[in-house]
């Protein structure tokens, strides 16, 4: 037993090294901020570093001891990103306080709590024995719970920026859309896996496009439609876009037909055009995207500020703590990427994107080597969820696509987002643990 443990203990060394690097990033970042503030180290800072490093290293070690799979990349990337998120939260806190008031009183501490809780959650998911079956068999239950939560939020939720996205649970605020992400991916994975052959076969042709048999696609579309509709009613367009992207990706994986994707994009285009007409708040977003300079102090203000921040960053960045990222509204949630772009420069931004690219590669690799179809779809779906979210928000903040209000996974300040992302990571690790070894040809 000890022998096996000992032999297993060294299996995740690469991950350990990478975690050390992540901790170093955290330490250097915190050190820069402390030096800027006058060089006063607090016990809290030390505690944070120790706790962070300790938790992740411990998780890694425990994973190693359990003899799980070969994936050694996802956890360090997540640790790196969340460490960066903590550093940024701490960097932005005093500026936000000065600029916008006491609303942003303790975001640094809160983010630390969220990240550490996320790590604990990750550990729980990884080590508490649960069956994948539970996801499969109770999929409607899970989805119904999620939709119910979202519906409750739509009615009883806290209104912020014109949308009711948050449910106030006293101690903290929950954003039900986040867990709905996982539940939807799970549901889609199970459903598509069940009906894989049926959907894969092309029964109808519409013009030059093939369509899957309608009786089987229809419930799927309805479920998705309900989800998306609820989101649209709540005016959470970022989540709607994300869910749609995930849906299309998983559909493509199952059917292998690019034409379905094309049809889906057309439908999305039509929906967007309809939205543009019906919802008043879509138009300013689109106008701000097309030319933020047209109304630089009104609709386009946020984007102009973000572009200016990016321009200020240059290649090497202005330096952590030397930029003015809080001039961009929502710089701790939606526009962290602009803050990173400003203070860490092109290099930092591209580095961040590389992290997400690596995450995607690793996630899809896990999907490829999954034990069964369901897990493959699940892994691919979860990876797509995280990476697509990152794509949507980074493209939005840099004015490549119209801005939508979603968070940068792991980096943005936000409890629900961080926790749910760690949960997804946990499931991915679980799947990777169950991976088939690579076929030896």
């Amino acid at each position, binding site marked *: 037993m000890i022998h096996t443990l000992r032999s297993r*203990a*060294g299996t995740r*060394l690469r991950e*350990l*090294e990478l975690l*050390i690097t992540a*901790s*170093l990033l955290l*330490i250097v970042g915190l*050190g820069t901020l*402390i030096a*800027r*503030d*006058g*060089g*006063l*180290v*607090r*016990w*809290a*800072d*030390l*505690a944070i*570093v120790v706790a962070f*490093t300790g938790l992740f*290293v411990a998780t890694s070690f425990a994973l190693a001891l359990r003899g799980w799979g070969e994936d050694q990349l996802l956890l360090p990337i997540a640790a790196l990103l969340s460490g960066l998120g903590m550093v940024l939260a701490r960097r932005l806190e*005093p*500026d936000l*306080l*000065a*600029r916008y008031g006491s609303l942003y009183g303790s975001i640094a501490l809160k983010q630390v709590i969220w990240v550490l809780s996320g790590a604990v959650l990750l550990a729980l998911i990884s080590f508490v024995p649960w069956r994948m079956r539970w996801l499969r068999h109770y999929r409607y239950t899970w989805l119904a719970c999620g939709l119910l939560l979202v519906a409750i939020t739509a009615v009883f939720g806290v209104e912020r920026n014109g949308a009711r996205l948050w449910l106030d649970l006293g101690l903290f605020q929950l954003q039900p859309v986040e867990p709905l992400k996982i539940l939807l991916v799970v549901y889609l994975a199970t459903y598509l896996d069940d009906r894989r052959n049926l959907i894969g076969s092309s029964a109808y042709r519409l013009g030059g496009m093939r369509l899957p048999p309608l009786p089987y696609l229809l419930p799927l579309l309805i479920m998705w439609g309900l989800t998306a509709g609820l989101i649209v009613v709540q005016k959470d367009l970022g989540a709607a876009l994300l869910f749609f992207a995930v849906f299309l990706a998983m559909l493509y994986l199952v059917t292998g037909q690019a034409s379905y994707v094309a049809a889906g994009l057309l439908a999305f285009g039509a929906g967007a055009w309809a939205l543009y007409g019906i919802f008043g708040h879509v138009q300013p977003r689109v106008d701000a995207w097309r030319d933020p300079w047209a109304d630089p102090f009104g609709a386009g203000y946020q984007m102009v500020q973000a572009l200016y921040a990016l321009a200020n960053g240059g290649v090497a960045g*202005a330096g952590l*703590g*030397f*930029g*003015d990222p809080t001039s961009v509204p929502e710089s701790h949630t939606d526009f962290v990427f602009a803050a990173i772009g400003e203070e860490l420069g092109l290099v930092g931004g591209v580095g961040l994107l590389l992290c997400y690219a690596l995450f995607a590669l690793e996630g899809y690799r896990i999907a490829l080597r999954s034990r069964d179809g369901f897990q493959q779809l699940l892994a691919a779906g979860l990876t797509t969820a995280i990476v697509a979210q990152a794509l949507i928000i980074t493209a939005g903040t840099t004015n490549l696509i119209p801005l939508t209000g979603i968070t940068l996974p792991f980096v943005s300040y936000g409890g629900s987002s961080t926790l749910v992302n760690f949960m997804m990571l946990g499931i991915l690790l679980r799947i990777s643990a169950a991976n088939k070894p690579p076929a030896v040809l």
Partner: protein
Amino acid sequence: MSTPKDRRQATADRQLLARRWRLRWAAAVAGLCASVALSGCSALSGLGIGPTPTPVPPLYRYDTAIATAEAGADREAQAAAYYARAGAHFEQGDYAAAIEDYGRAIELDPANARAHNDRALAHQALGQFEQALADFDAATRIDPAYTRAYKNRVALLEVTGGDPERLAADYGRLAELEPAAAAAHRYRQGVVLHGLRDFAAARAAYDAALAADPQHVDALYERALLSYAEGRLQDAIADLDRAIRLSPRAANAYYARALARSARGDRSGALDDLTAALALDPDNPEALLARAAIALDAGDREQAAADLARLELLAPDDQLAAAADALRQKLRAP
């Protein structure tokens, strides 16, 4: 069944593994220690309790930029740094500090027209209009093609209502600098000159505005009023006809044309125009008075009485009220 070779290999592998493991653990521990050492020692005042970090002043980066520039000897860089901080002060509303910094930037780089312009705006925000004007003058002297300075100066002069000659000259210059908006500038120049009663120059300005934009209804209207004041009723009515064709819902154009027609003796035309004007703007006291007067002249006493009654309900200003009273007297006397 493992051969001795295999066993040796396995041992070697284990040792290699163990060594790697030790190295890596050592590196990890070293890194941690280094990070602790890097942080330095401070008072052990408990977890989470300690003096809050000094808040970074919002102009921190500007100050550092200035410090950096002054360390060097590049006057232009220093001027740019001071200019940047002045801009930040201005944005925060600290206009006095902004003026100071702009002053320093100007000292270091006197040919910077933008700094003069911005300082003038800061003066204007503080209500120091003479200094603002002086700075605008400096800006335009340095760069006679600095459109923004001219625009700001005309804004200032329009607000303070002073020096109409200079205002007119500025509009003229703006028309030269911005040919795309020449019509608007020439029109405003015409309005200022019109107010000065320099009718010839005003007419030239309106003509220029209409040359740039033949559909500039405001210029047509004002030129018509000019012609009317000079007694050229034909031209006035022609211009007003054009203006009304372009803007059929402009009540005051109908009103002006009504007065012009009445001056020419065309009472029925005047009444038609006044009816149109009142249809568009029913509570216009001047139009009501005009219609009452012209109707009375034409002999339509009921119309005059009705209009005067409605005028009374509107409680017009003293002059109109007095004229309405005189008209009422005339109405009563046969």
